[in-house]
C-alpha cells in the first residue's frame, strides 16, 4: 500500500501540517482534511473551473494539483481572499449584477476574475469572455458575469485616470 506523507504548507495565512495520501488532490485536501469548503469539487478533470484556488499567488485548478505538490506552498481559497477584502469590489459587482444564481461556480469565478483584472486591466468584453472561458456557469448564461467584471474594470480605469486633487 502507498505511504501517507506529511505536508507542511500555508493555507489562508495559517501554517498547516497534515498527513495525506499522495493521490489526494488539493481540493479534496482543503475540503475534507481542512474543512475549507468554499472551492467546489466539480468535474475533477480540469474542465469546469469550480475548484479554482490560488497556489503561490496564481490561480490553479485544485483538482489538477496533488496536495503533496503543495508542500511549502502558499494556498489561498475564496475564504482567505474574501476575508482579506481582496475580492470586495468584484463581490459587490457580482451582487449588483445578479452574476450568480446557485453559487456553485462563484468561488472559482471570483478568483479567475481577480486574476483577469490584475493581468488585463484594459480587457474588452470579448477578452473577458475568452479569459473567463475556463470557468463554467450553468445558471446565468455568463452575460451578468461579464457585466460585473466589466463594471469593475471600468470603475478602476476611471479611478486611475481621475485627476488627483492637489493639496
Amino acid at each position, binding site marked *: 500500500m502507498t505511504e501517507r506523507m506529511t505536508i507542511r504548507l500555508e493555507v489562508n495565512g495559517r501554517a498547516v501540517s497534515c498527513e495525506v495520501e499522495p*493521490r489526494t*488532490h488539493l481540493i479534496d485536501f482543503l475540503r475534507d482534511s481542512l474543512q475549507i469548503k468554499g472551492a467546489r469539487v466539480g468535474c475533477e478533470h*480540469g474542465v469546469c473551473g469550480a475548484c479554482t484556488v490560488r*497556489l503561490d499567488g496564481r*490561480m*490553479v485548478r485544485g483538482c*489538477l494539483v*496533488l496536495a503533496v505538490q503543495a508542500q511549502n506552498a502558499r494556498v489561498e481559497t475564496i475564504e482567505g481572499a474574501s476575508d482579506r477584502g481582496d475580492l470586495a469590489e468584484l463581490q459587490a459587482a457580482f451582487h449588483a449584477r445578479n452574476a450568480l444564481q446557485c453559487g456553485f461556480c462563484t468561488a472559482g469565478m471570483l478568483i479567475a476574475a481577480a486574476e483577469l483584472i490584475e493581468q488585463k486591466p484594459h480587457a474588452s468584453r470579448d477578452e473577458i469572455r475568452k479569459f473567463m472561458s*475556463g470557468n463554467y456557469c450553468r445558471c446565468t448564461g455568463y452575460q451578468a458575469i461579464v457585466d460585473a467584471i466589466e463594471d469593475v474594470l471600468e470603475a478602476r480605469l476611471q479611478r486611475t485616470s481621475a485627476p488627483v486633487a492637489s493639496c
Partner: protein
Amino acid sequence: MKAAAFDYVRPRDIAQVFALLEEYGDEARIIAGGQTLLATLNMRLSEPQLLIDIGALNELRGISVSGDRLRIGALVTHAQIEDSDLVRRHAPLLSEVAPHVAHRAIRNLGTFGGSIAFADPAAEWPACLVALRGWVIVSGADGERRIQADDFFLDLYTTALQPGEVILACEVPVETAASNHQFDELVRRHGDYAIVGAAVTGSMAATGLIENPRVVFLGTGNVPERARAVETLLETTALTVDTAAEFADALDIEPAADLYHSAQTKLHLSRVVLKRLLCKFAEARIEGRHEGDKHD
C-alpha cells in the same frame, strides 16, 4: 472520480530520476505540471505505482537565447511563455499561440516539456515545434541527445523518447526579419482542445513565393501533420489574397473523425482555417512591403 493509490517522490537531482525510471519502468510516470496527467489519474485512465515529480529540478526551468536559438526549459509553464518578452522577441509564434493553450489556471502550471512529451496531436505546442523546425533535447542515464521535432512525434502519444529518458528543454531558431508566421484554430470553447488548427511559417520573398514554408495541422491526425502539397505550392506559386482559396483547396490531408465531427467536416474546417491563415500571410506580406516603402 478519484485517482487510484500511488507513491510519490520529488527527486532533488536528475540522476535519481533516471535511477527510479530504471527501477520502476512502465510502472512509474513523470509528473511535471500535471495538467494532463492529473486528469487521467483522476479518471483512472492511468494507474501508475509511482509518480516522479520533476518539479524540483531547477535546471529544467528558464528561457534563454544562445546564438541563433531560443531555449525553453522543460518546466517552463505555458503562462511563462505567454508573459515572456524574450519569447515575444525571438519566437513570437509561441507568444501568440500561448493564450490558446487551455485556460490561464491551467497555463499557470502546465509545462511546455510536458506537452511535448505527452504529444497530444490536438495540442498546440507539438505543431508549433514542427512548424518552427525546433529540437527536443532529451537526457537519459547514457547522456544527452538532440532530436529534431520532425523526428520526435512518431504516432498517437508516441515519441522518440526512449524508456528512461527525460526532456530537458526544447529549442527553436530565433525569428529573423524575413520570417513570418500565422496561427489559428477552430474551437467550441476558447481554451478547449481545438477541432482543427494550423501554424504556417516561412520567409516571404518579394516574388510572392514563400521560402522554407511549413504548414502544420493539429487535431487532424496522430501527430502534428504537415500539409506537404500546400508547402510545395507556396514554394512554387506566388501567394496572394486571391490565390489563398485555391491553395487551401489543394490541402490533401485526410483528417480522422472525432466524437463530434466527421472526417469530411474536419477536412472542410481544415481548409477554412488554412484559407484564413494564407490570407493573413499574404496580407502581412503586402503590409511588410508598404512599411518597407515608407523607410525607403
